[in-house]
């Protein structure tokens, strides 16, 4: 590649990489908790 012209300045780029979570690999940190067992009517 050529012809990018004269230099102007220097910068630094550090992209933030968001963690990717797929349906097959749930992040345990954000896993859905086990549902609470339904209470028996007598507990009301």
């Amino acid at each position, binding site marked *: *590649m*050529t*012809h*990018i*012209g*004269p*230099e*102007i*300045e*220097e*910068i*630094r*780029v*550090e*992209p*933030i*990489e*968001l*963690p990717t979570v797929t349906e097959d690999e749930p992040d345990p*940190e954000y896993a859905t908790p086990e549902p609470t067992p339904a209470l028996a009517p007598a507990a009301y």
Partner: protein
Amino acid sequence: MRRPNPLLLSLPQRTERPDVPLYIEPVRGLRAWRHARQDDGRILLYPLVMHSESPWPVGEWVTAQRHVSGFGDDHAAPGRLCNCGIHALASKDALLRQYGFTIHVLGEVELAGRVIVHSGGWRAERARISAVFIWDRSILDEHRRAQVIRDAEATASTYRVPLVHLGIPARRDS
């Protein structure tokens, strides 16, 4: 025990030169590559000018190697007083002017790390492919145009990036 937030951990650290502006979004530049179809049907991209047989990796950053000049100077790329680093253009018009009538694959890259800003583009420490372009190739004969489009489609599939149709600016004859 609560784990640290991975998003906060990935925040950029202080640069070694505090006067250099720090960006957290990749700079997007434009490039052209040589391409070669592999035995398995994939198309891999190669640098145009380095005569390298190492293709750009799929889904990973390319990191510019330290540059050793013929005078024994050894420095990290991109060097300020050098022409090294991963080049990319800023303008679609400039890209098409230089490579629009070749059979090279054109596309977009994300640039990161140390980046030297030029009037017409960038020299960067790291880059990765983010899109492949197709555009009006009416100058080519029908057979060759179809082949170029198939190559672009296969390249986008190989690198798992979008295939983007480039619009061509209207010609100014006046």
